[in-house]
């Protein structure tokens, strides 16, 4: 207790020097928390978008389905296993049927994916409701990117050709019932969403699907007759890997920033140990052990980070609160990288994040303060009293 009091008194007594260090450290604090918060916000948002638009509570895939290999789509469809069917009937899952097709926007041939979804579904954020009444034509919903690359507009007709389950050619005019603006390119690029039942009829695949999407929060993971359960962890591997790389980039930035602050602190420590030999000698003469002395000086350094945390709180809390409210604007084109990020990222600052950052800075500060203080161990009280250091 004594040394804490003493340390506090000492560093407050150092005046300007202390506060300069504290300010530099507090910058690191705010920067670390801000960067981490930004990445967390980004990752949360990407996961949220992906969950809402694609994954919900996880998926079951037909055994032949491989989203990375379009060649597998011919075979990737089948009757939905009974237990999944029960879920669907209870409104806890929806089936989606995926098939390849040829589209002819403006008479030009292109490959596309047809995705059948129940129009009345509530599990995914896809606005499938617009598919409920398409009149005589087959209504189709496309995303903004698809609209751009094909030149299609709401209300346009599009010729689509496909082969049904037996390989018979079929073709029809699709009516573009709406264009959805989505942050997730995985439900947009090169695909047309159409009513599931209509699609099953078109393909002659009654009761079949390619994937089944579980309701958000679903814990269902039973074996389902050859269909493979894919949990969120699996489905979001890419997003999480991306987030990881982003935060690696961020880490490099704030590690350097932290190093800079530590440089100042290290400097201060060395100087104070150099300058305060007599003081040390006196304290030792008064009976303080070398260990306690090391503790005292280490503590003095570490208190900087506590003060820095306080300083950071003073200007950081309003700053970060503001940025968490207003978010961080991203231009629309960012998503052309194929990432599902909204147009505005809201940093997310959690208690764990703040506590973690404080702990990190405190630990690093303590270590940095301790390193020069080790020198004290070699100190002879007699020399110290005379201002000498060996």
């Amino acid at each position, binding site marked *: 207790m004594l040394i804490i009091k003493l340390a506090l008194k000492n560093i407050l007594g150092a005046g*300007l*020097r202390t506060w*300069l*260090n504290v*300010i*530099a450290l507090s*910058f*690191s604090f705010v*920067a670390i928390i801000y960067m981490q918060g930004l990445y967390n916000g980004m990752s949360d948002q990407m996961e949220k978008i992906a969950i809402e638009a694609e994954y919900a509570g996880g998926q079951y895939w037909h055994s032949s389905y491989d989203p*990375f290999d*379009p*060649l597998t789509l011919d075979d990737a469809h089948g009757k939905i296993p009974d237990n999944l069917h029960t879920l669907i009937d209870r409104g806890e899952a929806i089936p989606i049927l995926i098939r390849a097709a040829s589209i002819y926007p403006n008479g*030009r041939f*292109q490959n596309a994916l047809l995705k059948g979804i129940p129009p009345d579904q509530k599990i995914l954020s896809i606005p499938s409701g617009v598919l409920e009444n398409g009149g005589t034509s087959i209504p189709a919903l496309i995303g903004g990117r698809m609209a751009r*690359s094909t030149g299609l507009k709401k209300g346009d007709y599009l010729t689509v050709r496909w082969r049904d389950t037996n390989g018979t050619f079929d073709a029809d005019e699709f009516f573009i019932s709406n264009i959805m603006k989505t942050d997730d390119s995985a439900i947009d690029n090169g695909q047309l969403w159409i009513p599931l039942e209509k699609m099953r009829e078109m393909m002659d695949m009654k009761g079949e699907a390619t994937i089944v999407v579980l309701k958000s929060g679903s814990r269902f993971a039973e074996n389902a007759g050859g269909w493979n359960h894919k949990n969120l962890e699996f489905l979001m*591997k*890419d997003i999480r*890997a*991306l987030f*990881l*790389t982003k935060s*690696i*980039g961020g880490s*490099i*930035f704030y590690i*350097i*920033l932290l*190093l*800079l*602050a530590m*440089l*100042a602190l290290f*400097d*201060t420590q*060395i*100087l104070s140990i*150099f*300058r305060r030999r007599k003081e040390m000698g006196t304290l030792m003469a008064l009976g303080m052990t070398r260990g306690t002395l090391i503790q005292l000086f280490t503590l003095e350094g570490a208190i900087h980070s506590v003060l820095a945390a306080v300083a950071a709180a003073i200007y950081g809390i309003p700053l970060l609160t503001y940025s968490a409210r207003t978010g961080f*604007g*991203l*231009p*629309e*084109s*960012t998503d*052309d*990288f*194929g*990432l599902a990020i909204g147009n505005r990222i809201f940093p997310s600052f959690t208690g764990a994040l703040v506590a973690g950052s404080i702990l990190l800075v405190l630990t690093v500060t303590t270590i940095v303060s301790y390193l020069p203080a080790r020198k004290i161990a070699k100190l002879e009280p007699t020399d110290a009293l*005379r*201002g000498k250091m060996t």
Partner: protein
Amino acid sequence: MIKFLIKGLLRDRSRSLFPVLTVSSGVFLAVVLYSFMNGVIADMINSTARYQTGHVKVMTQAYAEESNQMPNDLALTGINEITQTLKDNYPDMIWTARIKFGGLLDIPDEKGETKDQGPVTGLAVDLFSPSSPEWDLLRIEKSIIRGRIPVERGEILIGDEFAGKLDIAPGDTATLISSTMFGSMAIYNFKIAGTVRFGISAMDRGAILADIADIQEALDMQDTAGELLGYFPDNIYNDEKAAEIAASFNRQFKDPDDRFSPIMRTLPVESGLSDYIAMIDSMGVIIVSIFIAAMSIVLWNSGLMGSLRRYGEIGVRLAVGENKTHIYKTLILESLFIGIFGSVIGTAAGTGVSYLMQIYGIDYGYLMKNSSMMISNVYRAKVSTGSFFIGFIPGIVSTVLGASIAGTGIYRRQTASLFKELEV
């Protein structure tokens, strides 16, 4: 006087070594951080430019409309003449033709029959003409994983993961099946020279890199290419200049009534990155200024401490009758030397390390194994003119500033109490 000060600095390590170390470490960190930020930003723009858009890009208007479909039947003919014209008009720019193509890669068994097949996308670039910029643009040599670079016609590089998927190795034959620009089936044999990591996971999974002359032959595209890319000589995108070049080119060559007449587009237009570039620019400025502020404080602090530790010496100097202002001046002059010396070392070390980071990069690709996203797998720093100033100037200024604030303490010293302080 100066000589004397320098001698003093050199002889008293505590007066020179430690402050110089502090200054140079601070400057070093500033330079590295700045270069790193620069590199990450530039890399994002640059990888788009290098792989996709160039700084400017010439295509036929028809090709530009459907460019995501790789419509080589709409490619730009008479490419040699156009390139020559561009070279004459813009001698500083680097021009290079490319063809993007898709198809199947077919791997033969020992009888020459199909053993395995996989969908492939490809990029054909000028590999073998002596002045080809592609080796640098695509950093081909550095991305080799297995095997070697192509040294003669008919050799290709293949994505390392893709090679694994098709179970082929350098030295094997792979046949490209695609269609010619006129729609005929194109079949062309290649030898795998090596496997590469493109740094873009989507390409690593299913792409090949071939020589443009081979692909022109394979796809019946003599004197024709899908795209003609232009790069600024320093490889740094200059929006103003690019827009100017594009406007004058389009005035001269673009014919609205002829779909096969060329059109030039700039990087932001072609990539849709314009807002992003603007945003990143402003973000970079903010981050760097926060950083410089922090660093100035640190260096100021260190200047302050440098003066404090010489309390005794100054006492003696005052006691023997040296003028306070003179001492103050010498202190500042000393700090200037320290600032310069430290900044030089820090800048040299910082740019050196940044340069290494620019060449080797920090590879985080192993974290992205099963990803299908078009993002470069390597962080690289970038040393630019700014790298030499970003630490240097604040390094000197903040050291001098620190010393001048700290030095004011001299004027508060009472001559009378000096000897008392000096008692040991």
